[in-house]
């Protein structure tokens, strides 16, 4: 069923140019807010939708290649559009369409930072760079696009660059992004062997000897892990996401993290042929550690964007664990099970792009309406912002992995993949994998806790501050964006067979087998055979809705629908204030207590005699103090030593030159 679909690669390149043009127009008219908001961002959203369409066509087509006369002489850019690229381009299109539409109503003139036109330029360069990363077919083009992406997103993170914390967050992000880039560069250096040909086609054809494949794999894991936020390189995420404007956080969390997953898949499944089981085991362990770490930290956050950032770390952990499992299966030649694991990874990547984008955008609306990011000062917004609340509820239920929404499908597939591991020939792995499944399930269960906290504290209950009663619901563009993303959560949730039919093009390209087509029907998802495991979310959704509606009708018909409104009961306590509700800290307290060793906590408890009792708790990341702070101190000490050389007097520098010359003469003797 290979069909040639000429022109989709050209179409994708054209869209990249279109994005750059839109950005350039914005930069040329930096203060024309009307133009930027009502023409440029909607146009960009239209381009994203077109990208989705192109990607869908390209997904089933044969790989297309082209050589662009850009870059250095004798070193042109190679581009290639195959199933894997197309799938991630689809994620990029789907995520960015919602974000661009939302941005049309979001960006306003601000005192503290970059002008809207410049933001528009950076935003579109960011989109174009991500698309370039996905179609690049040689290391040179890939690295240029990768670095452009990092720089554009750095400038977007520091949009409000007059705030010192935001500058610091941006610096941390840039630093870790560059550590990652160095590792990726080295990885490509290893992958090209000694041929000096940096095209992916050449790397694909080579088979490295000795320890080199392992070196390449671990460099890729570190490099892409730094971008994705794998432990212990995750520290930039919870700093950069709250600092960035909400649409940018949405794009970074929803889409940019996926480019790192793309890179990891590209290197491990496409460019490297050797697959050793313990690479998979390490990726699996690392992924699960990341997932648990992320979700445990997410439960104790009191800033809503930090909470979502930690939740992204969790989801990236799940993705990496899935990749590890797929590698394990592939190393043992179980292509079908590898396809299930890989299918789960791709499905989850798409899901995460949709619901995390949705939730970050919802926090953006809340932030605009209330100017408040701290969970402890929100509450009761479902009454003021019903539209945002309803869509955020769908997103929260989806990310919590509840049937029949989309988060559950990918979780289901991944758990099915775990259940097939007894077929592996190594008993050591057979013993470890149940533990891995247990850890995954624990992380998934905790994510429900996180989402109840997020949604419950922000949207439910009573307003914790007086000014919240003036909060306004989101504007037109924002509503359309939020609603379309929420609708995608439902559609991806109830039509898994159709989505998997799309994913299978990637599976076929990378593993030579497919998940679908083993029984089941358009309604029934059955990865192996219906007897073994089957799931049909559409039926589940219909049954739940039907039972709910029938119950409502019957109760109303047989009894009555009388309803009175009264004050809350609360066991008869007469005096109730909004301060008596759980705060964000209060809701996370059980987790803080259970997982105490994870955290570095500073607590300030009031004494019984305090006239104005105050309770304060600060929860911090141990890894920061155990790993980053010492490294930073060492670097600073080294810099001070090197700094001693710098005297600022010309005579001293001439002296250095003289000594160097003498030393060289002595060596060259």
């Amino acid at each position, binding site marked *: 069923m290979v069909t040639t679909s000429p022109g989709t690669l050209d179409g994708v390149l054209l869209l990249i140019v279109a994005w750059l043009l839109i950005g350039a127009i914005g930069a040329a008219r930096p203060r024309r807010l009307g133009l930027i908001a009502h023409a440029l961002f909607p146009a960009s959203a239209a381009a994203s939708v077109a990208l989705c369409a192109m990607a869908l066509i390209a997904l089933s087509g044969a790989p297309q290649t082209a050589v662009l006369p850009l870059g250095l002489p004798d070193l042109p850019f190679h581009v290639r559009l195959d199933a894997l690229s197309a799938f991630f381009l689809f994620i990029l299109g789907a995520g960015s369409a919602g974000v661009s539409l939302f941005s049309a109503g979001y960006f306003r003139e601000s005192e503290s930072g970059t002008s809207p036109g410049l933001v528009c330029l950076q935003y579109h360069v960011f989109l174009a760079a991500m698309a370039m990363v996905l179609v690049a077919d040689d290391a040179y083009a890939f690295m240029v696009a990768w670095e452009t992406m990092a720089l554009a997103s750095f400038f977007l993170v520091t949009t409000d660059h007059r705030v010192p914390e935001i500058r610091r967050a941006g610096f941390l992000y840039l630093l870790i992004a560059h550590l990652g880039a160095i590792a990726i560069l080295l990885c490509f250096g290893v992958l090209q062997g000694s041929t000096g040909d940096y095209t992916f086609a050449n790397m694909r054809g080579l088979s490295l000897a000795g320890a080199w494949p392992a070196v390449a794999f671990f460099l890729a894991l570190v490099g892409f892990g730094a971008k994705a936020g794998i432990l212990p390189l995750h520290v930039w995420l919870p700093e950069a996401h709250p600092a960035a404007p909400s649409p940018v956080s949405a794009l970074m969390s929803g889409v940019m993290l996926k480019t790192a997953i793309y890179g990891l898949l590209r290197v491990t499944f496409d460019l490297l042929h050797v697959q050793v089981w313990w690479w998979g085991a390490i990726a699996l362990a690392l992924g699960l550690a990341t997932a648990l770490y992320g979700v445990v930290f997410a439960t104790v956050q009191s800033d809503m964007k930090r909470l979502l950032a930690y939740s992204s770390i969790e989801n990236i952990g799940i993705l990496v664990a899935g990749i590890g499992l797929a590698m394990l299966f592939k190393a043992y030649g179980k292509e079908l099970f590898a396809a299930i694991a890989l299918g789960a990874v791709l499905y989850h990547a798409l899901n995460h792009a949709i619901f995390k984008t949705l939730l970050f955008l919802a926090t953006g609306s809340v932030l605009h309406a209330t100017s408040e990011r701290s969970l402890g000062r929100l509450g009761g917004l*479902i*009454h003021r912002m019903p539209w945002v609340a309803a869509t955020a509820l769908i997103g929260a*239920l989806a990310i919590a*992995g*509840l*049937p029949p929404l989309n988060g*559950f499908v990918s*979780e*289901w597939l991944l*758990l099915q993949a775990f*259940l097939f591991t*007894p077929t592996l020939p190594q*008993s050591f792995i057979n013993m470890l*994998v*149940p*533990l891995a*499944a*247990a850890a995954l399930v*624990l992380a998934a*269960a905790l994510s*429900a*806790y996180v*989402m*109840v906290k997020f949604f419950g*504290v922000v949207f*439910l*209950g*009573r307003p914790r501050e007086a000014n919240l009663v003036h909060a306004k619901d989101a504007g037109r563009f924002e509503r359309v964006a939020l609603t379309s993303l929420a609708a995608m959560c439902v559609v991806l949730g109830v039509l898994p067979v159709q989505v998997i039919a799309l994913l299978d093009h990637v599976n076929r390209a990378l593993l030579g087998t497919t998940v679908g087509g083993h029984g089941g029907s358009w309604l*029934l998802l059955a990865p192996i055979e*219906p007897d*073994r*495991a*089957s*799931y*049909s979310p559409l039926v*589940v959704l219909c*049954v*739940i*809705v039907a039972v*709910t509606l029938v*119950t409502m009708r019957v*109760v109303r018909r047989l*009894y009555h629908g*009388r*309803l009175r*409104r*009264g*004050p*809350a009961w*609360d*066991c008869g*306590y007469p005096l*109730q204030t909004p301060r*008596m*509700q*759980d705060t964000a800290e*209060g*809701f996370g307290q*059980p*987790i803080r207590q259970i997982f105490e060793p994870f955290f570095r906590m500073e607590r300030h408890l009031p004494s019984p005699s305090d006239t104005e009792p105050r309770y304060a708790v600060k929860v911090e990341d141990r890894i920061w103090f155990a790993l980053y702070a010492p490294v930073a101190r060492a670097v600073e000490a080294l810099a001070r030593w090197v700094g001693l050389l710098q005297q600022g007097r010309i005579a001293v520098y001439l002296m250095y030159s003289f000594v160097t010359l003498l030393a060289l003469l002595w060596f060259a003797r």
Partner: protein
Amino acid sequence: MSVTGVLSQLLQLAVALVLAPLLVGWVNQCRAWLLGKSAPPLALPYRTLFKLFHKDAVVAENASAVFRLTPYVVFGAMCCAAAIVPSLATDLPFATAADAIALVGLFALARVFMALAAMDIGTAFGSLGARREMLIGFLAEPALLMVLFTASLISGSTSLPTIVETLAHREAALYPSLAFAGVAFTMVSLAENARVPIDNPATHLELTMIHEAMILEYSARHLALLEWASALKLFNYSCIGLALFVPFGIAEGSGDWLAIAIATPLLVAKLLVGGAGLAFIEIVSAKMRIFRAPEFLGTAFLLAVLAMLVRQLLGA
């Protein structure tokens, strides 16, 4: 999907809806006997439901749609779960649409909605209940899933009817993996159904309640649906336990009405024994402090993982 399949599916759902409140009544009766009190009538839960349905509902002034929708969603999820769990027969067409993992997902859906509704009014007890329920939930859910995975590994399927059919045809012997899983499952069921070592269904003492704290603001038909749903939950857990650990006598094959006719009294008998056992556990144990619950459920989780390991390594 055959007509007989649909019929047996509906029959099983109806049996679950009818028997669930009776099971709660039976457990309460046993508890009272064991404590030397005079027992409430068996049909008391029915009378309570009847009474509640006839009352006017009072809803707090600032309740949102989430609050009013939750009883229906929770009840719907529990009905779905009752349709998946094989209690009388294994010929359940709906069970192909949702397997054991989806069953756990349905329970989680009900729990999340309950917790959200509890936070909706913005009272101190509501959010306290929600927080504690989510705490119990995130510990109990993985343990339950691990128990179901052990059974899935034995039968090579996550579909509950297939699991039950496989387990019912094994020779009667004590399997170590199932023994571990059984203990873990009992502990999880106690926690999930708000029973004694974790929660006390009979208490309204503010600081100790979990489940009751969440539904404090509900009245009349909403409360009736939630009560019925929690009775259904107890029934579902009992039936999962029976299906996994004593599956004998369940009707197999499609349209075998005679087998279903035999299976029904057998199910009632098993539930009578199981309910008495639950009441016994409840009266011999004391309620734990909330922060002992993680230890209790952590033990259940470890036992369940151990069950899976035993199955993987020893094949037993």
